[in-house]
């Protein structure tokens, strides 16, 4: 991480204190934040999502799904054409049964694309834990990491403590 910024981490035990800290930080114009929570917390998200666009995962799903549909019909019809065998007096490219295949492939591709999307956007998997991460965050603690220029670190610490952080580091 560039020397021009430092990361200050506040560890909280409660949701409301965490929220308070976030509100204050935002009010003071600190926007470069990372919040660690053991569970997604509605209140915290509310604060964070205010000035963010909706996740783009759904775009992946849509594209994946459509690809599935298309390839489903393509595969069935094309392969049926290969030999043009009649069964049960039905036409070679009989669409109704092929819909089933197309449907299943829509779901399959859609689902896989969604997960890929999530991994891509969520930067997963990550090999080394980020410096500000603390194991307690997957248990019962909440963390607020603020990335700021070194000279402004003091005030950030102030805010975090004021909001009721059990611990602020460095």
């Amino acid at each position: 991480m560039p020397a021009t910024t430092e990361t200050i981490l506040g560890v909280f035990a409660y949701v409301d204190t965490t929220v308070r800290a976030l509100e204050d930080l935002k009010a003071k114009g600190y926007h470069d934040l990372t919040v660690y929570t053991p569970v997604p917390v509605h209140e915290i998200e509310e604060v964070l999502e205010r000035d963010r666009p909706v996740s783009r995962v759904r775009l992946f799903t849509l594209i994946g799904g459509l690809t599935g549909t298309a390839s489903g019909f393509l595969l069935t019809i094309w392969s049926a054409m290969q030999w043009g065998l009649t069964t049960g007096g039905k036409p070679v490219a009989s669409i109704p049964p092929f819909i089933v295949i197309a449907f299943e492939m829509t779901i399959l591709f859609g689902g896989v694309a969604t997960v890929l999307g999530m991994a891509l956007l969520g930067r997963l998997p990550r090999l080394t834990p980020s410096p500000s991460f603390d194991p307690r965050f997957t248990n019962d603690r909440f963390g607020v990491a603020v990335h700021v220029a070194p000279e402004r670190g003091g005030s950030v610490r102030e805010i975090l403590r004021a909001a009721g952080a059990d611990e602020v580091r460095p």
Partner: protein
Amino acid sequence: MNRRDFFKIVATSGASAAVAGGQRTTENILPLVVPNEQLVPGVAAWFATVCRECPAGCGVLARNREGRVVKLEGNPDHPVNHGALCVRGQAALQGLYHPDRFVGPGVPEGRGVRPVSWESARTQVSDRIAELRKSGQGRAIAVVTQLENGSLGALLDTWVQAMGARPRVTLEPFGYEALRAANRITFGRDAIPYHAFEDAEVVLSFGADFLETWLSNVGHARGFGRMHAFRDGRAGTFIHVEPRQSLTASNADEWLRNAPGTEGMLALAVLKVMVAEGLADRRFAETVAKVDVARVADQSGVPVERIKHVAEVFGHARPGLAVGGGVAVSGGNATDTLVAINLLNAAAGNIGKTVRFGPDSAYGRVTPYAEVVQLAKAMERGEIKLLLLGPGVNPAFTLPGGLKFADAIKKAGLVVSFASLPDETTALAGLVLPDTHWLESWSDYSPREGVMGLLQPTMSPIRDAKPMGDTLLAIGRAVLGTEEGKGPLPWGSQEQHLRSVWEPLVKTEWATALRQGGAWKEIAAAPVAARPVAVEAAAASLEGDPGGFALLAYPSFKFYDGRAATRAWLQETPDTMTQAVWDAWVEVPAEAAAKLGVVTGDVLKVASPHGALELPAYVSPTLHARAVAIPIGHRYAPYHVPRYVAAPPTPTNPVALLSGGAEPASGGAIYLGVSVTLAKNGGRRPLAILQATHDQQERELARHVDLRAAREEALRGRREPEEPISMYPEKQYPGYRWGLAIDVDACVGCQACVVACQAENNVAVVGKPSAAYGRAMHWIRIERWAEGRADHPTNLFLPMLCQHCEVAPCEPVCPVFAAYRTDEGLNAQVYNRCVGTRYCGNNCPYHVRRFNWFEWEIPAPLEVQLNPDVTVRQLGVMEKCTMCIQRIVAGKDGAKDEKRAVQDGDIRTACQQTCPTQAITFGNLKDDKGAVVGLVRSPRAYHVLDELGTRPSVTYLKKVVRDHA
């Protein structure tokens, strides 16, 4: 180069490619040693010969591939069977390739022999003969063979004379002595005439099972088909009198169930009525003067009006034909009965028209049973020191138990058998000198006057066997101390003798005779006069418990006298009436069964004064209340393959219950002579019955139409095909479109097609347990559907095979396109592709698809018989009728060679080819002039389960039923 060298081929490239299964790493391909103009590997060669499975002597063409016979077909040029064959003929191959065939000469041991060299074996016999002759005991040598009336017979008789042995006995369990005796009495001719069923308008049969075994069943079936099957508005009538509804009876338009042994009096009653009504020759009035129709009706259980009606119908026939035979006409009163029947024919003026003396049957030459009895007595007294038994005879099994022939054999010094398969008699023999199978032999046989059938080797022997003639000639010369070319036995071999007999006959036509399988000429009917002899036809008297049941021991159409029972194909061919396979049974009338508390499958002890049998019961609603019936000929399991074949646990031979007495008048064996008692022994032996029910529950699988209606429809002529309704565009057929038409009216249920298909398409044998559990593999089956009263049903025979539906339910459900519709209108099944999901099997409403539940075993050398043009299916694949795709391919290939399109008749499916009544027709549905289209457009045409909209390519024609008054 001598003929045998032609066949010095082991196997040729590709022949093994057909056999599927595990992978072979290296595989050898073997060329001929000597090139052979007659055989091209991969191309079939055909050899004409004569079937010797029974004395009917049908003409046969043997299909030879790579030096091995793979299929038998009827010889179309042969005057007896005109191209058709019966089940036994079709299955003869399994006798040829039977796993238990003796490997060579030897002393019988278990199911095989302890080998000895031909020399020592021959010397053993010749020494014995020599010493007997020295001590002047030539008469102590007895020769017993099956009916051999050709050159072989002559050769044998010469030999017998040269040896000074007692006259040769030809042993045929069904000898028809009574027929001959009756003809002696009425016509003064000791012969069995030709019965021209084809020319009769009405056939009146007294127990003659002429569609099963009687005299010449294939010929008769063909004649019957021509006479009876509905053809452009005309159809003959068939009335049958028998206590039991046999296969023949169930083909009758009118079946009269009479008390056993009352056929004679019925015949006379009919004659009496005819005379009274002026329908018969007056000269015969006095012969029936004493007959009281009412009393006859009372004794026989056939009501007076029925008798009158029969007389009516028969009397008006121009001409009619009355025949008598079968078990019910072989009682103590057999001759009287047959005389009565002769009178009937004579009075109706059928002699010379439908009953023709002149072309007399070979059966006339059979040694009367009475002489067999004499022989048995002689053996009993120890007068026989050397007994020679030819192939095809099995006296220890086929002769009545009362005769105790088996015990007698034990007293007959040295017993030498020429049989090629172990049986009850070879077990008692001291020496076996295996004869070659008739498909490997030179011989000849004359089924009737004017027809000389010629047998030629159709392949080289697969075992170390020698023709009986050769062996006997060698022995004879050894005894006489003469060498070849000299003395009374100059011939080097049976073949030489045969040629010496035939040369003067055919002169330069030898090659032709070989090609067409013999020589024949028309023989005009000899004029005979009937003596109106008075005859007293009392009911047959029965020995044993008067309160018991008359035992009807009837020959099985599958096994004849039992000689065919070694064929696994036949064991697994359903008996059409009961649909039972593999095991024997005792047919019990429903009332009696109810009284005994017996259901089908319960074991019954059947006891007569001469023995007892334990057999599973088959409860029959149709059998006469005072009779029980047991088929003759069921024998040991054909060959021992673990999972498939289990020998019937107990003896199954009803003949063992018979007295062994001979009928005084004719000297014939008495088959209807004992009354038996039934007792439940508590055990169960479930029968393998393939058909779940004979009631088609108004589902109109097999349909019928009234004769009058059929006539009217026929007048309106062809029916134009209606446009099928479909959401989809119709499938186009660029080239041919194959189809089958099956005439339910013509089908007599003889099962020949089933075995023909099995032979042609390598259909596996599964054995009793699997068959009983719905795992039989037949591609075609003959179903029996019973309509009307349970105790007196009208039976419809429905040959059911893959319907090759245009809208096939089996196709779209197959996940891998293993089942699909070809551009020639076949419903194809691609074995390679089949994964075995069996979805198609579920979805086929006809259930004609067969699944390979196991790798069915084909014990060596039976695999040699496999048709190289048809894949042997691996375990786990679905199979079914292909409409003989291999024949279609061949047919198209042949046509291509001639640069023309396939024509009607080029291609014939195996089932069609062998059908005696020509009920099945294959052809191109797009060829408007073709035979099949004519039938498909017939007013009688219908499709099975057509309400399902499967649109089959197999069309059925309704049975035409006569409206009984």
